[in-house]
């Protein structure tokens, strides 16, 4: 069994309440931080831990914190990004549902480290049940003196509020989130200035993902060095992986970074293999925005070595043969799934979610959706594949925020690795409406049920 830092007590009855959470050692990090550490020392521990942002970009959290501007007499804010809307990602919702106090404890310690006196948790509006859970947990914490004025008699004051979104994937982008929190449309801002200089209400602001903030708790409890001992290379610690698609046991798993992908998919400790005795065709390893990989490149690097669940190993080979850790949304496709259909679905998603500020994204995502719809429904021509390639290239890198890239990469990677499946839809307009393309050679080396050694 691998070590669990975030989900260790997930099955303890009543762990969503303050009392049980306390019995299991909860709020020790707040006591330690507020009573024995200075804000600078906390930032130093987080730096030592090597923690990288869990929201998608993987930016080192300690470094981000040290960039926060601290002008005299100006408020500073910590805003937790709980907008979780990246298709394939559902770990934050899970954590907030079952262990809300883990996030609240992390928010108190992190707010103290950053000198924030008011902090917000921006939760996507659809998560009303989770909003109610968090508000109840905050009320409990406040009644017990963990929030409010003069916490633990240290003179530190903190108010924590939950802010609902209105339904918009783009509000997960941190500057769109800040716009939304100011009561506006979620249009991403042009950077610079970065939020660390001018964020919420123009004040210095740190935006962090739910999981990043929750990870600060074990880092403070055990020390940054202990945390950094887990994992591999620059991928330290544990990571929540949301596993979905055609798996025997989809769900949220906490892994030690560096776990072989094959073990994650096939071992009974994790996903338990592909559902219904089928074979793996492809995966999207880090949420819908990252490149799709065929089964063979999912399990092994181009040089034949096993691929690991780490930031470095997942991106090994660049976009030619690799992908990205992203938000840790691991989507598995079995042999009966259609890559063209899924790519069309994702393009529809990005078109729907584009905020519309930049033409390459607003128009390009719509074009990609239309062309993919045409191919998927048996009306495509060979030029359409080249057209798609051309559109995605013109979006990538030419937009205000990374949603444009996120829309381009799934299309580019699908064509790169599954071009023959696109061409088959075009050459076989009738057949492709009745059956699926199947596995083809890229999954051939993979046996029905690879044997994995238990650790």
């Amino acid at each position, binding site marked *: 069994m691998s070590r669990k830092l975030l989900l260790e007590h997930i099955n303890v009855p009543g762990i969503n309440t303050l009392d049980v959470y306390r019995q299991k050692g909860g709020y020790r990090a707040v006591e330690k931080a507020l009573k024995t550490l200075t804000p600078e020392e906390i930032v130093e521990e987080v730096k030592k831990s090597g923690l990288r942002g869990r929201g998608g970009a993987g930016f080192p959290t300690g470094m981000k914190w040290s960039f926060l501007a601290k002008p005299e007499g100006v408020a500073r804010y910590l805003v937790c990004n709980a907008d979780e809307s990246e298709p394939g990602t559902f770990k934050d919702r899970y954590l907030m549902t079952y262990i809300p106090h883990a996030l609240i404890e992390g928010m108190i310690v992190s707010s103290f480290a950053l000198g924030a006196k008011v902090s917000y948790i921006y939760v996507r509006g659809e998560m*009303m049940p989770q909003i109610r859970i968090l508000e109840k947990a905050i009320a409990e914490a406040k009644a017990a003196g963990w929030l409010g004025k003069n916490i633990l008699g240290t003179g530190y004051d903190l108010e924590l509020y939950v802010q609902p979104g*209105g339904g918009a994937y783009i509000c997960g982008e941190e500057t769109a989130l800040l716009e939304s929190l100011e*009561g506006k449309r979620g249009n991403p801002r042009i950077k610079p200035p970065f939020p660390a200089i001018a964020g919420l209400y123009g004040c210095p602001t740190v935006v962090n993902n739910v999981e990043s903030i929750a990870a600060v708790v074990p880092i403070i409890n055990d020390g940054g060095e202990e945390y950094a001992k887990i994992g591999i290379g620059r991928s330290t610690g544990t990571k929540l992986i949301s596993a979905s698609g055609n798996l025997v046991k989809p*769900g949220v798993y906490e892994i030690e970074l560096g776990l072989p992908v094959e073990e994650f998919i096939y071992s009974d400790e994790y996903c338990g293999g592909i559902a219904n005795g089928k074979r793996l065709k492809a995966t999207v390893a880090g949420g*819908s925005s990252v490149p799709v990989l065929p089964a063979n490149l999912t399990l092994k690097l181009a040089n034949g070595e096993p691929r690991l669940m780490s930031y470095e190993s997942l991106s090994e080979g660049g976009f030619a043969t690799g992908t990205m850790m992203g938000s840790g949304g691991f989507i598995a496709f079995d042999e009966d799934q259609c890559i063209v259909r899924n790519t069309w*679905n994702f393009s529809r998603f990005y078109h729907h979610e584009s905020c519309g500020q930049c033409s390459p994204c607003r128009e390009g995502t719509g074009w990609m959706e239309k062309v993919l719809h045409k191919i998927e429904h048996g009306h495509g021509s060979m030029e359409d594949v080249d057209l798609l390639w051309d559109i995605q290239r013109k979006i990538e890198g030419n937009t205000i925020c990374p949603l444009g890239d996120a829309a381009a990469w799934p299309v580019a990677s699908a064509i790169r690795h599954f071009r023959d499946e696109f061409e088959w839809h075009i050459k076989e307009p009738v057949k492709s409406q009745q059956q699926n393309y199947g596995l083809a050679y890229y999954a051939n080396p993979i046996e029905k049920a690879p044997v994995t050694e238990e650790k």
Partner: protein
Amino acid sequence: MLKVEEQTPVVFSSELLAKFDDVKSRYPEGKHKSALLPLLHLVQAEYLWVSTHAMDRVAEYLNIQPIEVYEVATFYTMYFLKPQGKYALEVCRTGPCCLVGAEKILDHLESKLGVKEGEVTADGLFSFRGVECLAACGFGPVLQISPDYTFYENLTTESVDKLIEDLKNK
């Protein structure tokens, strides 16, 4: 998109206004516009949709221009700009859920309820639509029901039938 229709004037109850005040107190002096999204949710929970009249009253309450409310209400997908069924069913239609049968659930709802996406059943009870990833992809197919966003996972056509019967009998 935003059409000014014949609508009944709206007067917010004192209970609702008390909730507004509570939300407004969460933001620093002068930054009360931040309350806009939460306020629109409160309005929708009360009236099941957000009419232009209601938006105008929200604008007055926050002391901002009506257009500032309209532009927000039309940007976000959760605000209903026309009346829905008493139970508005929202099924996730994004990739991962489609791998496990979300499209079948949407088709089934259409034939079961006898209305198209976005329409309301004759008895006023139901409407449905496809929405994007609801952050529950491992438990798909999933649907949520506004206004309180109760959540249902691992749907089958049978469980959807049962859910609809239960709601009818409520």
